[in-house]
């Protein structure tokens, strides 16, 4: 009987790191992302009776967070626009398998995508959702989700090909050292 709230809390805890990463990708700022996750946790807690245990809590929480983000954006009249979205802020943990220049370029490319394409490629490519789940989260058709991902991927490939040349320039190493301090 009393196991239910505890397991709701436990499942929520397990989802928080991924939910927070998604929030960072939406807001582009860690402090705003944390506020957003906090609002989401409170909303979800209040709505927990409407959640069926055993169904996909992760998708449910992502949906609440995303709705919350866009409704706050609307309320503030897009004042949030100052953030380019997508991990623009420095990260305290550096993605180790890539050089910082490399990641810098990637973040820049990601921030140049339209919002709907960026969230699509992140939900599918990084959060680990299926097309069906991602379409539910974004309240769109599965086909729409597929075409957003495909367009995002093509655009990223184009953008990275252009910036890729700079990576191998004579200054790549020193630039890498400098950006380490600023960006990661």
């Amino acid at each position, binding site marked *: 009987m009393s196991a239910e709230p505890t397991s709701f809390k436990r499942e929520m805890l397990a989802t928080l790191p991924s939910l927070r990463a998604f929030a960072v990708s939406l807001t582009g700022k860690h402090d705003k992302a944390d506020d957003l996750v906090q609002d989401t946790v409170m909303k979800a807690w209040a709505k927990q009776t409407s959640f069926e245990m055993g169904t996909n809590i992760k998708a449910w929480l992502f949906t609440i967070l995303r709705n919350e983000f866009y409704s706050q954006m609307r309320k503030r009249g897009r004042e949030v626009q100052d953030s380019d979205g997508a*991990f623009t802020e420095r990260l305290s*943990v550096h993605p180790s398998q890539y050089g910082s220049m490399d990641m810098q370029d990637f973040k820049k490319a990601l921030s140049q995508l339209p919002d709907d394409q960026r969230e699509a490629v992140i939900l599918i490519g990084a959060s680990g959702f299926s097309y069906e789940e991602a379409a539910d989260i974004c309240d769109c058709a599965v086909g729409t989700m597929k075409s957003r991902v495909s367009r995002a991927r093509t655009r990223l490939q184009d953008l990275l090909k252009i910036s890729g040349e700079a990576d191998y320039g004579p200054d790549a190493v020193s630039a890498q050292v400098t950006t380490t301090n600023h960006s990661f």
Partner: protein
Amino acid sequence: MVSNVGKQSLGRSIHGMMKDKLVTQQRTRTQAGRADDGLGPNTDIGNRLRALYGAVQEEGVPAQLLDLLEKLDSAEQAQKSKVVSRDGE
């Protein structure tokens, strides 16, 4: 002795192969219907996306957020025990 060792390592390698197969199956399953989306385990964009996302995940959850969950949970427990004790009267 030698054949014993051979058998053991054979057993191990079969086990390893089965494990590989299982991993491949799991991977195929998670990638089902999206083989051509260019975001799979061997793609540059997919890997970079996951590296970036993973870096944020590894930062852990801020303490204030964990505190909030604890507070929500204990408030709810308190509420429940109040209801129960009232029912008991």
